[in-house]
């Protein structure tokens, strides 16, 4: 079964540093998403991406965040200057159509720890 792959599985970074979280969505999917889950809290939407541009973003997704699809396979989330409160599990997801279709396929997540 096709998978969404995320790397690294765990990243520790110092406050103020830049991090890039990487995702390889399923190859024929067209819509890409980032969600995050702060420990003990619910999964929160960050951003959706389609046709090489952001289609929607949440209030969490401020100027510190950016997404990119640098080539035909990778989908990255960059946090420019990390804060302690950015510590969370970050999930990438992809879908062949909008979320109203067959549902997303999620990756296994990257646990980001900001110290």
């Amino acid at each position, binding site marked *: 079964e096709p998978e969404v792959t995320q790397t690294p599985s765990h990243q520790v970074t110092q406050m103020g540093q830049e991090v890039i979280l990487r995702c390889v969505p399923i190859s024929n999917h067209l819509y890409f998403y980032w969600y995050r889950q702060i420990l003990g809290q619910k999964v929160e*939407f960050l951003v959706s991406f389609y046709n090489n541009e952001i289609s929607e973003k949440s209030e969490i997704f401020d100027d510190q965040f950016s997404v990119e699809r640098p080539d035909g396979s990778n989908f990255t989330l960059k946090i420019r200057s990390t804060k302690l409160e950015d510590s969370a599990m970050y999930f990438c997801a992809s879908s062949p159509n909008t979320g109203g279709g067959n549902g997303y396929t*999620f990756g296994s*997540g990257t646990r980001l720890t900001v110290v």
Partner: protein
Amino acid sequence: AQSVSQHNHHVILSEAASLELGCNYSYGGTVNLFWYVQYPGQHLQLLLKYFSGDPLVKGIKGFEAEFIKSKFSFNLRKPSVQWSDTAEYFCAVNPRGSRTYKYIFGTGTRLKVLA
């Protein structure tokens, strides 16, 4: 504002007991509804989905859910749980008919099944 409520945060059951996890959402329009499961240390996996037709939907691993439009509910059920069902369960809603591709997740229900 759109929201999803999962009433039970922690549920402990013995094997063979029946399970029902509640999910209510607040949104006046048409929605697509999902239940995801997250086993310890793993990614979110789709259990089942509803977007039209029979309001009783069957998913993987013997789970089912019933959409009751008048109650804005989508409760998850399983007649007889197993130890391997120990996991966290998330209800998610995708409002249809807009540019909103995002899911709105509930806070999750942590299920522990005792052998």
